[in-house]
């Protein structure tokens, strides 16, 4: 009992050093979308701040796949971008193998770390420069990070990478538009692998693809993970995909992690009402005829999120406390939930999947 109420700051403790590849602590990212100063004065409106990420902490163990799920706009991509350094965080820290890489300066000072993390993007059509040959695209990280490698070596390596993702070396001479979506995503993966990364951030790598192609990519990613010992930060809104690929799943809502845990546990016995809602909303391929009450409402604007628990306007269990007090994540290092109802034991049993 006492153990269960320990407020867990992070899904996993950073205790045993080397094991943790990435540690994220209290990550915050705000975007200022205020109207111009003059408008604010004249219309007496304040600043408008998008609280895209509002204090997210997690760590990822080497070789694991940590997944983030959540509805559109809840801040998943922002977390991904923060991790790879496309945005500097507004607050909070990022550590890669214990090295702080929170600020852009820290990143510049540790260029090797940057090369060890790569990213795969959602849109296979937009993530490859249409004017570049595939070979050049794939070779770019090699040329940037390992200067002085001879041209033939680079080409050889590119060919190898292309084969690794299931394309042929001769495809390097072509341009991206000559490939289908699934093949392009393979090229993206080859490019990401070219830097010999240990850590891959995948922002919805398959959501633009058809299921049959998605299966190919997911299988490829899993295979590569096994073979190369990669660690993934995997982002998706498709719970089934997340279930399929991840070791640990974190559920995001309006910039916060509301629940996390090992995949099976989380999907087997979801505790946060939001997690339950998401699971409920998945169309039922089995046609088991389970009774579902689709949850009403949509994600509120991150500009002025509801006070208290951000989920309370949509939550069937919301109480006055939920409306006022932001719930703390409670649970062990590996599985926790931030919900007053859970804490107060008001949670009805899960009907089971």
């Amino acid at each position, binding site marked *: 009992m006492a153990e269960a109420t320990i407020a867990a700051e992070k899904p996993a403790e950073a205790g045993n050093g080397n094991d943790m590849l990435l540690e994220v602590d209290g990550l915050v990212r705000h975007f200022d979308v205020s*109207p*111009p100063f*003059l*408008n604010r*004065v*004249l*219309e007496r409106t304040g600043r408008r701040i998008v609280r895209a990420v509002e204090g997210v902490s997690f760590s990822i163990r080497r070789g694991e796949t940590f997944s983030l799920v959540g509805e559109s706009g809840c801040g998943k991509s922002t977390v991904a971008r923060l991790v790879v350094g496309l945005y500097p965080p507004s607050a909070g820290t990022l550590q890669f193998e214990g090295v702080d890489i929170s600020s852009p300066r820290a990143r510049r000072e540790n260029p090797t770390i940057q090369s060890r993390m790569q990213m795969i993007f959602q849109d296979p059509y937009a993530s490859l420069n249409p004017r570049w040959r595939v070979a050049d695209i794939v070779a770019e990280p090699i040329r940037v990070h390992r200067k002085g490698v001879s041209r033939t070596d680079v080409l050889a390596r590119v060919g190898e990478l292309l084969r690794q993702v299931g394309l042929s070396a001769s495809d390097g001479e072509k341009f991206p538009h000559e490939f289908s979506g699934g093949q392009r995503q393979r090229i993206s993966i080859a490019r990401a692998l070219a830097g010999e990364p240990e850590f891959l951030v995948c922002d919805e790598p398959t959501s633009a693809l058809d299921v049959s192609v998605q299966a190919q990519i997911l299988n490829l990613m899993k295979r590569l993970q096994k073979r190369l010992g990669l660690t993934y930060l995997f982002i998706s809104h498709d719970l089934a995909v997340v279930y399929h690929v991840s070791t640990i799943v974190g559920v995001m809502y309006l910039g916060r992690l509301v629940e996390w845990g090992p995949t099976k546990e989380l999907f087997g016995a979801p505790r946060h009402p939001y997690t339950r809602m998401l699971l409920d909303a998945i169309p039922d391929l089995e046609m088991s005829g389970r009774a579902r009450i689709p949850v009403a409402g949509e994600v*509120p*604007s991150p*500009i002025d999120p509801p006070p208290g628990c951000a989920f309370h306007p949509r939550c069937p269990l919301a109480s006055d406390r939920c409306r006022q007090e932001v719930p703390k994540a409670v649970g062990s290092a590996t599985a926790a939930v931030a919900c007053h109802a859970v804490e107060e034991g008001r949670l009805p049993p899960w009907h089971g999947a």
Partner: protein
Amino acid sequence: MLALIIRRLLQSVMVMLTVALIAFIMFRFVGDPIAQMVGQDTPIADREAMREQLGLNDPAPIQFARFVFNVVQGNFGISYQKGVPVDELILSRLPATLELSFVAALFALVVAIPMGIYTGLYPRRWLSNVFLTVSLLGISLPTFLIGILLILFFGVMLGWLPTYGRGEIVDLGAWTTGLLTESGIRSLLMPAFTLGLFQLTLIMRLVRSEMLEVMRTDYIKFARARGLSNRAVHFGHALKNTLVPVITITGLQLGSIIAFSIITETVFQWPGMGLLIVQAIQFVDIPVMSTYLIVIAFFFVIINMIVDILYHVVDPRLRAETGGKGH
């Protein structure tokens, strides 16, 4: 909206100040203003005295401030070439140029928009191709050549239209107009056509490409799928969406019409500002040049502001403040 207007005003002031600075630099540093003012045999001492008297020895910022102060009061100095105050000179030429530009713009718009719509809606019809080809000629033939040919044909060979000037003009106090007399209107036809032709082509092509673009959008497809009549789809939905960019570009074009009138006015001896500036440039009449610069910038700024406001009137997305909030 208010914020928009205020911001635009501020920006306009900045633009005007920049232009004033350019004008000032021209005024002050291109040639020696004193040398332009006095006769050849004025002694050096007198020149120095004048220099002092005119404040040309003060620090540049003070001179600039004085320049701006004078400009704001409408005091632009005396034309080197004609010896009369520049503001009067410009003001007396302004109506001619504005009238010509306005009529040319009106002509361009009235002809170009329907043609643009037609070619945008029916890109494959032969008439569209005719319009397009003819319009290409409009931007390929030099304005002055068109003007001369018009004069030769309609003025000299057929004798239908006057070949030069504004015709009979009516004095309405501060404004003189040629729009109230028959000869004034007849005189206006050829210059307005010449001046408007280029803009007509541009606007027509713009409307066409915007129309083509809009016709491909989902909401047009959806409007069709709802069974709306062609009229409603073309004019209610497509046209209105086309207008947003068209307004901006057209606005800019109208600004440039005023400046483009230089050539037309030269060809038709149209007594407007353009004629004045061409002469002023040939004689390096700096006060006239810098004043013209400021006046043109002023018009541009005004037009731009109107365009911006129109833009906001047409596009509800831009006046988000007025409605309820989304999300």
